[in-house]
């Protein structure tokens, strides 16, 4: 597959939008992209912004128009893949969590070039690192255009990766807890939010600057012996907070196992 591949997108929500923006925004020679009509507002917005992007009449028209079909449907809607007619040479790149390759292959037969993936919002800025299982040339081409690709051959490792993506809301809850606490101490709500956001934007910026970050080392850097970071970390550890996180990941993994 060359850069001349035509992409199709089934299920046009926030992650599909990020992918289309990453492929087209500021790119002199963007690919042709056919979007499914579902999620009509987002599809229309993208088709209006980029001349190579068009909204297809229906899902079958997306498949018919495309060399590589990206599936960004919700799990509950994914069975509609089985109602469409596929061509043997097509590649299918799924971003649906919890649907295994065996099930996908059954739905899209006679197409056999199938993989799963976990695209994340930074693909919009071509700064994503996208996990793919199993490795598939068309997926690597696509996700390298959107940043870089992490090919994972082992299904257990791949599904573990999906489980860790369930921890983002917990991070914001952590920030929310701190904001609420500051407010209860008399800091104005907007100031508390701004302060917590700046603190963690700083932490993430230093994280971004490191190639191959060692989290234990970063934690140690912030946790001066006898200091307040060390104390909060120890209190949380003693309470079993990190054990709860581990158990939660195991549960998420069991749920995602295909």
């Amino acid at each position, binding site marked *: 597959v060359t850069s001349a591949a035509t992409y199709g997108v089934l299920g046009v929500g926030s992650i599909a939008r990020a992918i289309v923006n990453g492929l087209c925004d500021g790119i002199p020679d963007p690919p042709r992209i056919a979007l499914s009509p579902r999620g009509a507002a987002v599809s229309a917005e993208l088709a209006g912004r980029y001349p190579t992007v068009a909204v297809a009449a229906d899902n079958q028209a997306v498949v018919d128009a495309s060399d590589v079909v990206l599936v960004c449907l919700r799990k509950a809607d994914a069975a509609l893949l089985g109602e469409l007619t596929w061509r043997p040479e097509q590649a299918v790149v799924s971003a649906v969590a919890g649907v295994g390759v065996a099930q996908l292959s059954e739905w899209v037969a006679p197409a056999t070039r199938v993989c799963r993936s976990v695209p994340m919002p*930074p693909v919009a800025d071509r*700064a994503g*690192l996208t996990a793919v299982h199993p490795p598939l040339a068309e997926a690597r081409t696509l996700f390298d255009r959107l940043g870089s690709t992490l090919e994972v051959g*082992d299904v*257990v*490792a791949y*599904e573990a*990766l999906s489980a*860790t*993506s*369930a*921890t*983002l*809301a*917990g*991070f*914001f*809850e*952590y*920030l*929310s*807890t*701190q*904001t*609420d*606490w500051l407010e209860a*101490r008399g800091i104005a709500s*907007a100031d508390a*939010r*701004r302060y*917590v*956001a700046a603190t963690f*934007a700083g*932490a*993430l910026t230093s*994280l*971004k600057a490191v190639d*191959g970050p060692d*989290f*234990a080392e*970063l*934690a*140690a*850097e*912030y*946790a001066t012996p006898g200091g307040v*970071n060390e*104390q*909060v*970390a120890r*209190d*949380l550890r003693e*309470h079993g*907070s990190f054990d*709860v*996180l581990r158990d*939660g*990941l195991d*549960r998420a993994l069991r*749920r995602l196992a295909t």
Partner: protein
Amino acid sequence: MGTVAPFFEYLRVLSDFLVGRGLAPADAQQIVSATFTGLLESLQSHESPDFAEMVKEHAPPGGGNDQLTSLMREAGVFDAMTHAVEEVHRRLTGAGS
């Protein structure tokens, strides 16, 4: 704030979990780092972000994020954090000592 080191511990738990499931350590560190640095923009794009709202955005009902966050909430993780911050505050201010 006293809460940055525990955040890196949070990431370390995730990275260790992935390594325990067969991912190469360098890959695990890289993907965990990419997942969270991807949130940087959402922290910087608002003057004072509403974190409770962002929790909702990232945790559609019934999904993995919703499930894991509820689990941590029920297990008292965030309460433990409030207590830990209280304790730090007490130490820093000498309040109650």
